[in-house]
């Protein structure tokens, strides 16, 4: 039956051409991280007719089936969870490293030590104007360093807050996008290229969400994804074609709180959880820094109140303010530095009061030890976070590699496919040629 051979050859041509198209599509998307490898299923076409009780088969070639998209829900989920955990650790690490640089480079510790050193030098000759002035200026510098530390810490905090606000917008966009994809997926026909593209977009949106929040997605039978944000309590973000909006707000101490719709929740993973925890740590750092500044203010002012200046007048406060933000040196003149104890005459070189201040500053509860402890605590925390981030980066990279192995494009196998399909195409053309020759042979009978 030459016409059947024509049909068979034509179906083979169609199938191999469509497979070639998909191969070309795979190769074109080899560098697209959101693309999942496609594959065309094929089925044999056999037509069976029955006349009476006599069934007769007629071969019909090949039937191009559906476009299959390589996917693995489990590996996708592993990759998403790993990237959530990595983002949380990494964001917190980067934010706290910023705070660490802020506190280390602002020179709070150096400022306190220089103040101590200037006071120690003053003990040598408490009435020498140059030494008194240098002690007062060291006090001014220390106050300035506290304010710089306060400013840089506030800067680091506001950077994290701005990032949290901006990323909240991204999350809301992704949630809306996912809801729209869900709506489209309901109407998309199984096995079409359009559906495969929608599924790619769905997985991309899920990955984007997972970077910002820990998510617990539910993939429904029709391919739509419902997303619940992991946290206390877990809250639904996307259900079918409707998405809720996430909001972030910041308390006076800079800590962040999140809400979906009317429900507040504390995120349990993703970059937002990292930011929330970094902001909480920064609030702690601020309290600590304010405490150190307050102790420097209180110790200096108490010592001043207990003594008399070079002119015999009662000591006035050395610092004004109550924390790192507003500490300021307010002594009008260097003569007012109360080096001598109360009751000492004008021009006394008695340094008992100065010695008491120095002892208080150097005590284990004093500001220099406090600043040292603050820096040690912070740098240890940052170091631990760095180690954790490194570990999670390895986990995340291997999950990502696993995902790419399951769904990514392998150029070598695509090249092999290309050769195979080209040969199949040529063979099918040859089949049509043979059919034509057969037909000609029959027509040529005389």
């Amino acid at each position, binding site marked *: 039956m030459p016409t059947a051979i024509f049909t068979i050859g034509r179906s083979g041509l169609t199938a191999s051409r469509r497979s070639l198209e998909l191969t070309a599509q795979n190769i074109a998307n080899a560098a697209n991280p959101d693309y999942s490898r496609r594959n065309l299923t094929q089925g044999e076409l056999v037509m069976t007719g029955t006349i009476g009780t006599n069934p007769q088969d007629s071969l019909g070639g090949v039937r191009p089936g559906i476009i299959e998209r390589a996917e693995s829900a489990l590996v996708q989920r592993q990759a998403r969870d790993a990237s959530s955990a990595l983002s949380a650790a990494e964001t917190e690490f980067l934010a706290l490293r910023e705070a660490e640089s802020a506190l280390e480079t602002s020179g709070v*510790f150096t400022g306190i030590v*220089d103040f101590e050193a200037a006071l120690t030098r003053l003990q040598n000759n408490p009435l020498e104007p140059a030494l008194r002035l240098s002690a007062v200026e060291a006090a001014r510098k220390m106050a300035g360093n506290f304010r710089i530390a306060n400013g840089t810490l506030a800067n680091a905090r506001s950077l994290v807050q701005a990032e949290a606000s901006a990323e909240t917008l991204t999350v809301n966009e992704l949630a809306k996008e996912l809801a729209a994809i869900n709506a489209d997926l309901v109407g998309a026909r199984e096995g079409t290229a359009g559906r495969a593209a929608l599924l790619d977009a769905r997985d991309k949106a899920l990955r984007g969400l997972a970077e910002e929040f820990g998510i617990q997605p539910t993939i429904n039978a029709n391919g739509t994804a419902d997303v619940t944000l992991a946290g206390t309590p877990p809250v639904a973000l996307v259900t079918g074609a409707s998405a809720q909006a996430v909001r972030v707000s910041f308390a006076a101490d800079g800590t962040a709180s999140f809400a979906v719709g009317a429900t507040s929740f504390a995120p349990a993973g993703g970059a937002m959880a990292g930011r929330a925890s970094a902001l909480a740590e920064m609030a702690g750092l601020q309290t600590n820094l304010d405490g150190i500044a307050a102790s420097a203010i209180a110790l200096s002012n108490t010592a001043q109140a207990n003594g008399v200046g070079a002119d015999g007048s009662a000591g006035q406060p050395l610092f004004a303010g109550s924390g790192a933000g507003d500490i300021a040196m307010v002594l009008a003149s260097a003569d007012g530095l109360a080096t001598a104890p109360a009751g000492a005459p004008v021009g006394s070189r008695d340094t008992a009061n100065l010695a008491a201040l120095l002892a208080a500053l150097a005590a284990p509860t004093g500001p220099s030890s406090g600043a040292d402890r603050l820096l040690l605590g912070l740098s240890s925390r940052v170091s631990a976070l760095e180690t954790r981030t490194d570990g999670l980066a390895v986990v995340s990279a291997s999950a990502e590699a696993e995902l790419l192995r399951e769904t990514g494009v392998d150029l070598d196998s695509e090249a092999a496919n290309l050769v195979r399909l080209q040969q199949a195409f040529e063979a099918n053309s040859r089949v049509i040629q043979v059919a034509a020759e057969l037909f000609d042979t029959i027509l040529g009978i005389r």
Partner: protein
Amino acid sequence: MSSVTNSTGSFFNRSLAQMSDLRAGIERTRAQIATGRKFERGSQDPAGAAQLRSVARREALAAVEGDNAARLGQDLGAAATEVEAVTALLQRARELAVQAASTSTGPDGRQAIAFELDQLRQELFTRANGTSLTGEPLFAGQSSGTAFTRDAAGNVTYIGTPESGAVPVAPGTSIERGLPGNEVFEFDLNGAPSSAFAVLGGLVTALQGGAPDPAAAAGAALEGIDAALDTTNRATTILGTRMAWVEQVQQQQGERTIALAERRSRVGDTDIADAIARLQQSLTALEASQSAFARVSSLTLFDALR
């Protein structure tokens, strides 16, 4: 289809990550060599950074304590010089008193002696109010004014404080700044408080005709001058001991500064030989991995198909 493949994207990601790790390591080693510091941020070695901070604090305070000790040494030296001059002066006064006590010295001779003694008394007063290099009184204790005043009648009174205050020169060590004037120039004579000024002043008055028997008065004054000499000798001993103490402390400070520097270097400085060896190793690894990447990434079937 869920066959497992060797994804091209995965290969590129892996190679890039490995090469950027190597590159970051090289960058860090290079920074260590360039700055000479083992770490830039505290979090790279929290315990080391804390040690460096405490070493830096100790070093800052040690530098100031070193300055304090040097200056204290100068002040004590100036005081000792004055006290030595005072001792020489009192010895000369004693010689004069012995001459005056001798009956062979006539009234004119006593007048001359009285005149010289009066000069010595003036000099004694000036030396007692001597100042350090920076203009601080040497014998006024904690007071910044003069140590002694003289009223119209020529009576000299100590107006400084009885304590001279201490200067911290090392952790937990303070050394007295000097000696208050009352310990250098005042003493008890036969149970009554007296001073070098009073003894010399009395002798001058006696020799100038204030006493019926100047020779006997001069003999009696010897006892007072001896007591004054004893007091200044004791002051010289005390000041000398303190100067020796300061010197010892300075020596210890020098040793401690070296120890601190060694410790800082051990904790925070780059071991150059080690760093360069590591740099070379990382560079070799990076070059090898780059050329391996170039060769492997060109191994695609597309190249083989013509």
